[in-house]
């Protein structure tokens, strides 16, 4: 165990430094189309929200950090450092060693991102054994403990089920268990609750929240839901067309300055307020400059 003073010192130092990140993909004519443009932020042991519409480049930012961009992507940055390691200078093998063990990702839809022909237990064990050699029996014990830690009531039963046999909420818990079993320092959650019911959403969020605060890891929470992010995260970055247009402390979101952020907040229907027609975003070309 680390001493509390040690932990405090650790809390200040950034886990991830991103400076001037650019991601571009070639189009059919071979020209490079930028999808992430000059994105800079640092992430400490905190919950950082990354919000934007589809196509704003928020997922591409997360994937570039992990090194999971689709083939053909051109990634450049002034700095892309994880705990002092320059990620852009790493070999694919080094990136692979980091992934899963030091940095992990929770994906949107458990229906599509779990392997359909392996049981939940096999998949949790696999992610464990990919990084540490251990006998199968010990791996199973650890996997069961991880499944219990994500509040799956009957871990033994879930262990032997296939992904199609569990509900969306259970699948997402299993995926979180799989990602957290190696105790990563950075967790990138890409729309972890968008495929879930509102009520299950709350449970999964509460679980993520308690796990993140217990283990003091850094969380990059990617979502299109500005209201959800503002309640869940400490700090929010708002992206529009590949650029960060605003950074704001979550509790000050209602004071957001940028018209895009205001528009996103404003266009949701609210219980108890009758607004007909709903205000829509008036996209101005100067936002994407």
């Amino acid at each position, binding site marked *: 165990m680390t001493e509390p003073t040690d932990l405090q010192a650790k809390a200040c130092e950034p886990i991830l430094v991103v400076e001037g990140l650019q991601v571009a993909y070639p189009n059919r004519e071979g020209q490079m189309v930028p999808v992430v443009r000059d994105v800079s932020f640092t992430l400490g042991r905190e919950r950082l929200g990354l919000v934007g*519409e589809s196509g704003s480049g928020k997922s591409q930012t997360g994937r570039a950090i992990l090194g999971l961009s689709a083939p053909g992507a051109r990634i450049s940055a002034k700095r892309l450092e994880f705990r002092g390691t320059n990620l852009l200078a790493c070999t694919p093998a080094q990136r692979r060693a980091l992934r899963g063990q030091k940095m992990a990702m929770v994906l949107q839809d458990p229906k599509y991102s779990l392997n359909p022909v392996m049981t939940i237990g096999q998949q949790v064990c696999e992610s464990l054994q990919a990084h540490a050699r251990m006998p199968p029996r010990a791996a199973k014990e650890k996997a069961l403990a991880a499944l219990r830690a994500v509040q799956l009531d009957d871990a033994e039963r879930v262990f032997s089920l296939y992904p199609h046999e569990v509900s969306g909420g259970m699948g997402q818990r299993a995926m979180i268990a799989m990602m957290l079993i190696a105790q990563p320092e950075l967790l990138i959650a890409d729309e972890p609750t968008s495929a879930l019911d509102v009520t299950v959403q709350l449970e999964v969020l509460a679980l993520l929240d308690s796990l993140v605060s217990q283990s003091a890891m850094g969380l990059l929470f990617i979502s299109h839901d500005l209201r959800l992010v503002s309640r869940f995260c400490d700090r929010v970055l708002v992206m529009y067309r590949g650029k960060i247009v605003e950074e704001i402390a979550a509790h000050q979101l209602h004071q957001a300055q940028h018209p895009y952020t205001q528009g996103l907040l404003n266009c949701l229907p609210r219980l108890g307020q009758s607004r007909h027609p709903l205000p829509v975003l008036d996209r101005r070309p100067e936002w994407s400059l």
Partner: protein
Amino acid sequence: MNASALGLQVQGLRVAYGDFVAVADASFRVEPGASFGIVGESGSGKSTVLRSICGLAPMQAGQVQLLRTDAGKVPFPGSKDFRRQVQMVFQDPYGSLHPRQTVDRILAEPLDIHRLDQPQARIEEALDQVGLGSVFRFRYPHQLSGGQRQRVALARALILQPQVLLLDEPTSALDASVQAEVLNVLERLRARLGLTFLMVSHDLAVVTHLCDQILVMRHGHSVEQVCAADLAAGRVSQDYTRSLMRAAEGFVRSGASMLIPITPKGPP
């Protein structure tokens, strides 16, 4: 309101797949020209209700009936005329449009089936109604954004000039900003064409925005029916509705105690 507006009455609807009862007993009445919403979590049977109305799910018991204000005849469920009057818009515009057909072809098919005249003019008009210009007419679905696709799906339903629209989570696959646009289109069309809406959603705010009457469903049973104003003001009688409303407010950090105990499964 449109003089020929049709309403919809569902009585004692029961849908079961083998031993699994998806909808145990649903009864409600949608007045002609009204907008009715069904909310519930996944597995509550809300989409199954819509699917069985338009004949996509087997009905074990119960009755579906169209209502009209004047004394005329109403088409019988399953008849061709019923299918023309009652059209459905599905949740996922990425899955509900044929990927290898152009918008033009997608919109022409219902006209072919129902042998309607002047297909060109009707296609132009339908695209115009949903706010897409004729430039979109010869595009393929993959060339359109999610909001544009959902508008095409809406145009496909409207092209037969139906009186009742069944909307199965029409905006839940869309971004918040695009959702606002599609909701506004739906609202404008209802006002202009005098349509009757039956909408299903898991989002209480969306349903109260668009609907006057709301039915809350859980595990295939109806929990309660409230009017939108009562729901918005919190005047509801069932605990389950209250817990749904709390969930709709979003995440509140207050330690482990915020795990709302509403997941115990099984019929209430």
